[in-house]
């Protein structure tokens, strides 16, 4: 068969290298991420493979992955430093043994774990991903929501790369950034708790607002979207509750409805894992909608409705396309007519069952923004022109399922 031993071949190869048309290459090369980052980057997280994948929606290319341990893989991106933050839970023996909760700092160029900060092993785990952790507006502190079931926040100084403090938040949960050194939590009675930290990340001030919604009658979801100094909370019944956090005390603006009366009668409703997104430059709100009765607030969406935040008027309804099919990361695709049929089937089955739908949306913050959709049903990421609603296609990133989604430069457009 003409096979040769390794040594022989290697020698032959090296001896003959000078005659090669393809030049000899060096071993050990590892790619880095480009700087500056692209405007259409998105992190998509897969709890089955326990990692998040960075994809460039401009060309559909995978840029790399970060592993994330048990739970929902979520990536935070500061504007101040070329870094990514991932909060992870591990056990010394996989699913048993000693628990370690850590915040890992990944290099924004290297995508390597450069440092880690050990946290109290109290981090909350839930299917929900919104509000589970937050990065302060000055990019200095990360707050991690703890639930034991006592509620508290672990504060990490990501600049100094050390654990700062644990701050108790009795009756209040989750964390949203609200100023350079301030976080906001949602309380069981429909109020907000404002937690301000000092330069060391310790508790400086903790205040409770009045309730701004009725958690019995129509609770707001955790899946809020940031619009400048406001947080927009959507309720189960599709009311937007804007909360202005520019001042010392929150200002609760008048609620407004995502659906008109006819649509309400038709059971149109917000739903999914992450159902709000804002494009700050144009002041547009994107809401993930489906038809379904009460208690379908976690059901994925079939349409995205776009609103002008200034006028609170709806600009457009986008009928979403299916997320395609993949099996354990391998896309089920074909060319020609079969490929066309597969696409049609994906579109046609969207919304046919509660979980064959879009579970999360996000929007990039550039001038030609992309609307991104993912769902548990597929490892694909679909993208649309966020201004026109035009469907641009799907990217398959090798994931088994995609349930978390973030656009890394949502507020800043890149690293400073």
């Amino acid at each position, binding site marked *: 068969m003409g096979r040769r031993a390794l040594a022989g071949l290697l020698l032959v190869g090296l001896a003959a290298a000078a005659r090669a048309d393809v030049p000899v290459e060096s071993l050990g090369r590892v790619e880095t991420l480009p700087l500056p980052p692209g405007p259409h980057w998105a992190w998509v997280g897969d*709890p089955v493979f326990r990692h998040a994948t960075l994809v460039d929606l401009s060309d559909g290319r995978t840029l790399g992955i970060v592993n994330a341990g048990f739970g929902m893989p979520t990536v935070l991106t500061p504007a101040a430093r070329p870094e990514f933050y991932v909060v992870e839970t591990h056990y010394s023996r996989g699913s048993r043994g000693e628990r370690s909760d850590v915040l890992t700092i990944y290099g924004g160029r290297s995508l390597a774990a450069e440092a880690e900060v050990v946290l109290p092993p109290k981090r909350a785990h839930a*299917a929900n991903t919104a509000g589970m952790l937050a990065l302060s507006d000055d990019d200095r502190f990360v707050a991690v929501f703890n639930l034991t079931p006592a509620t508290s926040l672990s504060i990490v100084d990501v600049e100094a790369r050390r654990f700062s403090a644990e701050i108790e938040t009795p009756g209040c*949960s989750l964390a949203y950034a609200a100023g350079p050194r301030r976080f906001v939590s949602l*309380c069981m009675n429909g109020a907000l708790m404002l937690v301000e930290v000092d330069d060391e990340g310790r508790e400086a001030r903790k205040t409770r607002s009045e309730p701004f919604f009725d958690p019995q009658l129509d609770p707001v979801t955790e899946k809020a979207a940031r619009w400048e100094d406001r947080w927009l909370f959507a309720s189960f019944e599709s009311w937007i509750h804007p909360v202005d956090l520019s001042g010392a005390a929150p200002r609760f603006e008048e609620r407004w409805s995502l659906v008109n009366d006819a649509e309400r009668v038709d059971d149109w409703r917000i739903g999914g894992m992450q159902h709000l997104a804002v494009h700050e430059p144009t002041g547009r709100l994107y809401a993930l909608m489906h038809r379904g009765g009460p*208690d379908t607030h976690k059901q994925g969406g079939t349409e995205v409705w776009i609103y002008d935040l200034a006028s609170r008027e709806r600009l457009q309804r986008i009928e979403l396309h299916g997320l395609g099919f993949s099996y354990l990361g391998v896309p089920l695709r074909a060319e020609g007519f079969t490929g066309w049929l597969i696409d049609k089937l994906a579109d046609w089955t969207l919304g046919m069952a*509660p979980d064959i739908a879009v579970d999360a949306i996000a929007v990039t913050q550039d001038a030609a923004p992309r609307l991104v959709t993912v769902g548990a049903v597929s490892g694909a990421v679909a993208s649309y022109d966020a201004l026109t609603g035009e469907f641009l296609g799907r990217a398959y990133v090798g994931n088994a399922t995609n349930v978390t989604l973030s656009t890394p430069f949502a507020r800043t457009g890149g690293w400073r």
Partner: protein
Amino acid sequence: MARMDRWMTGFARSLARRTSRRSVLAGIGTALVGGAAVPLLPVARGRAEPAPGDRVTPSGEPDPTTPAGDPQDCGYWRYCAVDGFLSSCCGGSHNACPPGTQMSPITWLGTCRNPADGKEYVISYNDCCGKDVCGSCICRRHEGDKPVYYTPKSNDIDWCMGTREIIYNSTVAVVVGVAREKG
């Protein structure tokens, strides 16, 4: 072909059959991490159907050949607010965890109507923990579910925080009492 489904009688029945209310592809994310924290369902409901009479098993359970009486079916009466994998499909039963797991002592209670006697029972939904996700018989019923900040009614939360490891495997539904018969 007829023999093919013999195994499956009463076991992991086709989820497709139930897609109008529940999952087929099952919100894998929720399923993998979300525990079985259980919302409290409204007690006040319309009058019960007549009790099935002779179909009732000695223990007061509905006919086990119907979904409402089959602990391996998402339609089993006690699962009225479960969100997770059914322990009964994972090596355990509706009220015992699979071998080698630990039952979380921290949990939430639901209220489910037993069609066999028309009574509302208080059900404790406890997560089975310390082995990774079972994967069988995903069952998601979000009725009465609230967001995470309303902790005791949020079925997204992984309630394994009460055991040695927070790793979620599956969920049981244990009768701990009877609620008032009319809410």
